[in-house]
C-alpha cells in the first residue's frame, strides 16, 4: 500500500498533547460570539483560564487570551470573571477578518 496519509498522532495510540493540537477538532468554527477582554479591568486572577471548558486560555504574562482556534464561545469566562472584564461579542462583528490560525 502506498500510504499518503500523514500521521496526526505522534504516538502509537491516539494521544493528544495539551500544548499542541488537542484532539484535532476545529471547535473554533463553532463559535457565534467571542470573548473580548478589557485589559484595564483585568487583575490576572486566572479564573477565566481555570473555568474554560476546552482549557484554551493562553497565559500572556499579565492577562489571559482565548485561543481562537478552539474557543467555542461558551461565555463561561465572561460569566466567571469577578471584574466583569470579559464581554462576549458576536462573531459577525469580526467578519472582515478572514480565517486566523494561530500557532
Amino acid at each position, binding site marked *: *500500500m*502506498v*500510504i*499518503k*496519509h500523514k500521521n496526526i498522532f505522534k504516538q502509537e495510540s*491516539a494521544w493528544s498533547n495539551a500544548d499542541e493540537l488537542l484532539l484535532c477538532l476545529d471547535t473554533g468554527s463553532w463559535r457565534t460570539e467571542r470573548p473580548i477582554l478589557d485589559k484595564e479591568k483585568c487583575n490576572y486572577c486566572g479564573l477565566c483560564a481555570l473555568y474554560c471548558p476546552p482549557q484554551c486560555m493562553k497565559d500572556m504574562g499579565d492577562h489571559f487570551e482565548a485561543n481562537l482556534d478552539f474557543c467555542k464561545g461558551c461565555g463561561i469566562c465572561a460569566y466567571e470573571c469577578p471584574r466583569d472584564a470579559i464581554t462576549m461579542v458576536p462573531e459577525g462583528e469580526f467578519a472582515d477578518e478572514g480565517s486566523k490560525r494561530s500557532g
Partner: protein
Amino acid sequence: MKAQKGQVRVITGNATAAYGAMLCRPEVVSAYPITPQSELAEQLASFHADGILDAEMVMVEGENSSMNVVCAASIAGARTLTATSSYGLVFMYDALQETSGFRAPVVMINANRETPGIHAVSSGQQDMISARDTGWVQIIVENDQEILDQIIMAFRLAEDYDIQLPVMVNYDGFYLSYLAEAVEIPVIEDVDQFLAPLKKQPERPKLVPGEPRGCGTHGIEMGYVEARYKHCMAMERVTKKVDEIDRDFGEYFGRSYGGQIEEYRTEDAEIVVVTSGSATGTARTVIDAKRAEGVKVGLVKLRLFRPFPAERLVQALKGKKAIGVIDRSVCFGWKYGPICMELRVLYPEIGLVPILSYIDGLANLDINIPHIERVVEEVHAAAQGKPYQEVTWIPMEE
C-alpha cells in the same frame, strides 16, 4: 391476499425503524437512546405516549439493563424489542449472549456506529462485527424502506418455532439513520396478517408464574454441548428461512430484497463487487456506469451476515474471474476486512481467483463513487492477470 397500499411519508431511517417496530405490536420495549439512534427511542416513546404503541415501556439506566429486560420478558413469552448502537451494543456484551443462549427471540435494531477505542460518534460497521460471535442472527440493510420491511421480517424469523433466535437488524448510522426518504408505511392489519402464521405454530416454552421451571440453567458437560449444538443447528436453518420469508414478504407486500444476498447484474458478469449496507446504493450507480462502458461487472449485496450466507455466495460468485469486497470495518488479527475474510473461506468452491479486500468508509468517511470506480478498475485488472494489491485501506492511500 395482497397488502393494501400504505401511507407514503418522508421520514428518517430512525423514524422508519420506529414505525416498523410499532407495526409489529411488541409487548415489551426497552430501548436506551444513543447517537445515532436517539430519534428511534424517542419516536417509540412518542408512539407509546400517543396510544399508538400498546407496549410495556421499561425505562432503564443503560443498555446492559435494556437487553436484560427484553431477554427476561422474551422468555416470559412476550414479543420484545430493543435498539442500540456501538457503545450501547458493547455495553450489553454479556446480556447479548445470554439472550441468544436462552434462544429468546428478541428483535434488536442496531444503528451502526464505530466502536470504542477512539471516541467515535460516526458511521461504521465495527459494532456489528464486534458482535459476530454472540450467537445472534444479523442482517444489514441498504435504505429506509428496507429498514421497515426487514424489521417486520425479523419478528417473523426470530419467533419461528424452527428458529427461536434473536435477530439484529443493522442499518448504517448517519447515512441511513438520519436519511429522509419517501417510505411506504404498511397498514398495521397487513403486518398482523404477515405475522399471523406464527400463531399457527407450536408455542415456544416460556416462564409461567406458579410453574417451577428454569431457562439456561447450568450447562455442565453434555448439557452445555447439547445447547450449543442445537443453537448452531438453528443458525444453519436461518439461511433458507430468510429466503423463504423474503419471498413471502415479496408476494404479500410487493417488495422483495433477495433474501440472504441480492445479486445485481451478476448473471453474465466476469467480475463482482461485494458490498453491504448503504454503500450498496452508491455501488449500483457505479456498476451501471461501468456496464455502459462495457465492463462486465456485477454486484452482490450481502444482507445476511450471521449466519454467513455461504451457499448463496458460492452460487453467485462461482466462475467469476475476480472479486472485490468492500468492508466498512476492520478485522483485528487478519489483514483482510471482516466480510472479505469470511468470504475467503469459500475460496475452494468459488475458484482460486483474486479476491481483493478494500477497507473504506470508516468514521463518517464516505464510500463514494470515485472509490468504488477504483475498486472496479482494480478488480478488472486483477481478472486479466495483472498484479494487484490484496488489501487496500482506501482512506490511508488518499
